[in-house]
């Protein structure tokens, strides 16, 4: 009986290091690569901690959070074709059969916005020049650079290139450079490599984090749209839940296929 609940033996010391950094959060971010006239940040809101999703609705469409009318997002013809081919776990087209969800089928990284929909926690670690987001699900992490602009021609990657700034009590994250291999949600909505994300993260109160995401992807959607998720501060220690393809395939054989086909009498 393998125990795949792995503690963050490597990450926790890092958390300890960054905890000391968090004590000095009133300093301005390093301005080495910023423009000379960039506004000086005098207050950094404390967003640190581990956060677990509340509710976890499968779609980012604010008018259809459960994904029961997923074709109502304003998709381009390119995106609609991809969406119709998707066989997702949630929403109106939810299925156990011939699943082609890249996470279930290949253990692909879920992508930044889909990660917000899983029941596993993420942690925010703030330092003067960079904010780190650590995700329990599949052990992913990403930096949000506070001290530079985007590269002029970023590579297309699973996590993209994220830069951030503080606006009052909100961390505003701007991300480009994403590949088009992930879904934006749990109901199979696609995106292109032109996706431009704006995440606005703020602490509503001591124990509540609000994440508002704006999707701007002219190749896939005819107009931008914005969704929101809420998170509660968690006292549970951060863990790692990895995605193992062999475990996923074993589960598929033992449960998914059995629950799909008509059983023999």
């Amino acid at each position, binding site marked *: *009986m*393998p*125990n*795949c*609940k792995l503690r963050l033996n490597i990450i926790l010391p890092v958390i300890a290091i960054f905890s000391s950094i968090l004590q000095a959060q009133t300093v301005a971010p390093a301005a080495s690569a910023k423009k000379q006239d960039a506004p000086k940040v005098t207050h950094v809101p404390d967003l640190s901690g581990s956060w677990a999703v509340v509710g*976890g609705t*499968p779609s980012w469409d604010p008018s259809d959070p459960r994904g029961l009318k997923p074709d109502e997002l304003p998709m381009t013809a390119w995106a609609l074709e991809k969406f119709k081919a998707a066989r*997702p*776990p*949630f929403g109106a087209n*939810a*299925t*156990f059969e011939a*699943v082609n*969800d890249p*996470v*279930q089928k290949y253990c692909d990284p879920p992508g930044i916005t889909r990660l917000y929909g*899983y*029941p*596993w926690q993420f942690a925010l670690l703030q330092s003067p020049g960079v904010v780190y987001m650590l995700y*329990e699900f599949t052990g992913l992490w990403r930096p949000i650079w506070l001290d530079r602009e985007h590269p002029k021609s970023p590579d297309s990657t699973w996590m993209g290139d994220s830069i951030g700034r503080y606006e009052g009590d909100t961390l505003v994250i701007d991300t480009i450079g994403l590949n088009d291999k992930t879904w934006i949600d*749990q109901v199979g909505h696609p995106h292109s490599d032109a996706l431009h994300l704006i995440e606005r993260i703020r602490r509503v109160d001591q124990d509540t984090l609000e994440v508002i995401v704006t999707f701007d992807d002219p190749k896939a959607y005819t107009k931008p749209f914005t969704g929101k998720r809420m998170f509660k501060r968690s006292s*549970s220690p951060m*863990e*790692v*839940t*990895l*995605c*193992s393809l062999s*475990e*996923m395939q074993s*589960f598929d054989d*033992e*449960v*998914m296929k*059995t*629950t*799909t*086909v*008509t*059983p023999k009498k």
Partner: protein
Amino acid sequence: MKSKLYTLYLATGLLLASSLVSAHHGTSGYDMEKVTTLNGTVTSFNWSNPHCLVRIDVKDSKGDVKDWVVELAAPTLMTRNGWTKDSLKPGDEVVAETHPAKNGATTGLSGASTSILKFVVNGHALPFR
């Protein structure tokens, strides 16, 4: 071995369905409006990703033993709900609630991140919510 199987149709099935949506594969293969109570003997408990699995030998109404596979949440999420890898072991007598497969297979869904159906092991209830 006690060996009965009960099925309860829930008027509040949609409520339960919404509370179990966190399984990575969704719930479309299961009848979330139905709760079946399995009364049998544990043959294995696999504490593993993506979902913990319990195999239970359950006698049906004809006296035939059926091998049920009951799905729970991932180990990290089960731990947060008070379970451990030692919560079940082969030979344990269990009374377990589950949402059965729609296709009639002897598979069921009993737990996700925010909800675990009732599991009584050798007369003692495991944490559920």
